[in-house]
């Protein structure tokens, strides 16, 4: 046990003060800013903007699937371009960028009690390179031949062949260049997030006092730093194959009756590299969501997160395990079949720490004082969709069950539920939760209720029935299902229903966007700590926090992040920087 120093005997903060860069003009304050909070908003705004492009793309593909033959402008080429760009944008440019670049930048320094990220200049560069990557991506829409239509997995050989839209035009090149830029930019940001957590913590902020949000983002960033190089390597090698004619991934091929120059390459090699990045990527998106949702539930149920230690261990365990499960995306890829035994086992093992996290979330609700605020509602929606999507993952991870289901709509439904809907409802919950800190005003409650109900129920109605279409054997990535015999007429009606729900859910996001903009001016004044939360970001002297985050002196941390409803304490929350001991019997009865 640790000796507890009496609160009043503590000298002022001894953490070395960092030199802050002081902006001199409007440009360096709001545009080329080195303040992590401004960079966070730049990241979030860019990610949201490109995310809306991806949303529109999903509408277009749902138009085709729900009402086949009605819209002539959706040619097969266009359809494959829509699905490719939709997937790539959502996974990389929206989810990864928003969780790490957006939430990471805003929350890490505030939550660990730092004035800023440790390398602010590099942090700023990170955003501008990210923006460049997004612009290159957008440019591919206007390039001759349009963007690539290779599917977001970009499997060679088809990704760089004429039979695929953009394969022999600019599309695939711009895609690869954009990804390479994204990875460079992300690495710059990622170094900041990791080193700030390592070195920037204020006095008293031990690892076990970190909010789970920081744990989630920190672990995800470490994983991303180690996983993204695999995508980088794959992209560079594919770029060589496409632009210079090497044969890393390209075997001997007869395309439309003509022998190509390539020979001997291995398409499976690309798949290994891609999924070596691609599977950790799932958890790179999921872990920040896990962390954030833990905090949302704890704050709004006024109760400490149940099993904090187990939650931390589970985050670390999931992070480590996720590097040895990648080939479960390749059960039917033609790799050596004996790999299936190993990867099915590791994949199902990872279900155990994940399940523990779910139990701990619902056990936090047990005997809580649940305020059904909008962040709480979204957190509940997360648990439902994540449990649903996680459980269907047990189908696909179990190698032989995957055989009939892989490459069907079942897979589409599964990953949209688990890494589409689930993390995105966490993002919504987090925005409703932290918006008051960012702007000083609350988001409108009634619009929020509308947004929540339509998004949650609509998304569930989209993706739950979709599993059954996949179970029927309907393959994914088909723009034309009319000739597929397993696609019955009633299933086609179901598909139309799913499309209509997709438009409705998409519409709700426009309402949300309106709420975001409208409330900056017209929202209810929030005050510094509207949710009565304990973590440091709510204890800043100004709201929104000024440059440098905290006032003259950095806060000193005296307790963990979850002192809610402590027996004997007057209030039902004790901020982390409040000195003094409260409560006598802290062990549960």
């Amino acid at each position, binding site marked *: 046990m640790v000796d507890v120093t009496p609160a009043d005997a503590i000298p002022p903060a001894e953490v070395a003060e960092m030199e802050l860069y002081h902006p001199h003009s409007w440009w360096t304050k709001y545009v080329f800013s080195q303040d992590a909070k401004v960079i966070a908003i730049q990241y979030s705004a860019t990610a949201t903007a490109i995310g809306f492009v991806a949303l529109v793309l999903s509408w277009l593909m749902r138009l085709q699937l729900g009402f086949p033959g009605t819209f002539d402008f959706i040619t*097969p080429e266009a359809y494959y371009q829509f699905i490719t760009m939709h997937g790539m944008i959502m996974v990389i440019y929206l989810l990864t960028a928003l969780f790490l670049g957006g939430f990471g930048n805003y929350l890490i320094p505030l939550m660990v009690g730092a004035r800023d990220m440790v390398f602010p200049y590099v942090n700023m560069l990170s955003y501008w390179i990210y923006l460049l990557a997004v612009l290159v991506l957008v440019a591919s829409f206007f390039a001759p031949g349009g963007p690539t239509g290779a599917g977001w997995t970009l*499997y060679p050989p*088809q990704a760089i062949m004429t*039979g*695929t839209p953009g394969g022999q035009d600019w599309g695939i090149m711009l895609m690869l260049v954009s990804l390479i830029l994204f990875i460079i930019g992300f690495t710059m940001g990622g170094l900041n997030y990791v080193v700030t957590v390592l070195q920037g913590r204020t006095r008293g902020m031990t690892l076990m006092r970190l909010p789970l949000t920081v744990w989630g983002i920190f672990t995800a960033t470490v994983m991303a730093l180690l996983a993204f190089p695999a995508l980088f390597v794959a992209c560079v090698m594919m770029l060589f194959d496409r632009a210079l004619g090497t044969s890393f991934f390209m*075997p*001997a*091929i*007869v395309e439309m009756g003509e022998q190509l120059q390539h*020979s001997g390459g*291995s398409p499976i090699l690309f798949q290994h590299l891609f999924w070596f990045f691609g599977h950790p990527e799932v958890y790179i998106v999921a872990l920040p969501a896990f962390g954030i949702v833990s905090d949302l539930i704890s704050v709004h*149920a*006024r*109760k*400490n997160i*149940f*099993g904090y230690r*187990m939650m931390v261990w589970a985050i670390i365990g999931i992070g480590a395990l996720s590097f040895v499960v990648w080939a479960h995306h390749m059960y*039917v890829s*033609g790799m050596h079949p*004996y790999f299936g*035994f190993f990867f099915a*086992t590791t994949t*199902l093992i990872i*279900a155990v720490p994940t399940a*523990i996290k779910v*139990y701990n979330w619902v056990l936090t*609700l047990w*005997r*809580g004082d*649940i*305020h*059904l605020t909008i962040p709480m509602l979204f957190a*509940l929606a997360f*648990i439902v969709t994540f*449990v*649903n999507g996680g459980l269907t993952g*047990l189908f696909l991870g*179990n190698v*032989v*069950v995957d*055989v*009939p*289901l892989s*490459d069907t709509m079942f897979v589409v439904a599964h990953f949209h539920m688990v890494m589409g809907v689930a993390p995105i409802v966490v993002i919504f919950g987090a925005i409703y939760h932290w918006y008051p800190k960012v702007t000083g005003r609350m988001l409108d409650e009634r619009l929020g209720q509308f947004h929540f109900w339509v998004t949650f129920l609509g998304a569930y109605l989209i993706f739950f*029935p979709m599993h*059954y*279409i996949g*179970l*029927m*054997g309907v*393959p994914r*990535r088909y723009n*034309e299902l009319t000739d597929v015999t397993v696609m*019955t007429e009633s*299933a086609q009606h*179901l598909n139309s229903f799913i499309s209509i729900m997709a438009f409705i859910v998409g519409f709700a996001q426009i309402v949300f966007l309106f709420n975001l903009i409208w409330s900056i001016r017209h929202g209810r004044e929030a005050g510094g700590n509207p949710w009565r939360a304990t973590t440091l970001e709510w204890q800043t002297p100004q709201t929104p926090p000024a440059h440098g985050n905290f006032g003259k002196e950095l806060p000193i941390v005296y307790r963990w992040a*979850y002192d809610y*409803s402590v027996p004997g304490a007057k209030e039902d929350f004790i901020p982390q920087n409040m000195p003094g001991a409260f409560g006598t019997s802290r062990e*549960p009865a």
Partner: protein
Amino acid sequence: MAIALVLVLIVVGSVLFHFLSPWWWTPIASNWDYIDNTIIITFWITGVVFAAVVLFMAYCVFRFRHREGNRAAYEPESKRLEWWLTVVTAAGVTALLVPGLFVWNRFVNVPSDATDVEVVGQQWQWSFRLPGKDGKLGTSDTRDVTPENPLGVIASDPNGQDDVVVEAADLHLPVGKPVKMLLRSIDVLHDFYVPEFRAKMDMIPGSVTYFWFTPTKTGTFQVLCAELCGQGHSLMHGVVMVDSQEDYLAWLGEQQTFAQLTAPEQTGSADQIPGKTIASGQEIAAELETVGSR
């Protein structure tokens, strides 16, 4: 409050949808009902967990919703409860994994009496090759693909001469006989998938992959490509007809062998090729019939 009710409705609705909706897998036509059974086990275990978690959550939201003067309990952790949950989860996961691996073992080990059937994918059609009298498929190479030799069979390999080549047409299989599908592609990734057979596998240019199954029902089944292969992906259909033994032999009798297909080029040198290696499909069918009757 509404949320508690909605959570219950989600569970009830999902379960009702599962049992009452008309959308379910197509009737199986192969030996892989093992796979179907594993899926059923998985549905039961995961369904129970889903219902339990969401209903428990609904109860919590209803029972512990905020009311004036409420205060949450203080409960950092409960080691015993967490360990119990871990053990129960691990047991559930094992119950899923063990049958899965057991069936996978069956899936990857081909029975010795399975007949080879080669499937060749190309943008965007299916071709097939059956071994001839010798029961062996000749070797092949993508570099040897020409308009006359669409599958790239190596002409110098004597095993390949009597192979039956079915270019861009329907494949017929005899019912009740295990087949080993050898999968090959000459351009991009494809995936040979017949929903009724449950099995599928990617085809990779430059290598040969496989899976095996035994057709158990006669009838006509649609082949779908299940790996994105370019803009014609969704139109890459084919047909597999599972025939009775007699129908199968009748079909086989009408097919041409590799030697016959390439014969026009070889007319000049026809003398040098021993007549019997140019076996027709008819001869192979006759041969098989005698083997079958023995």
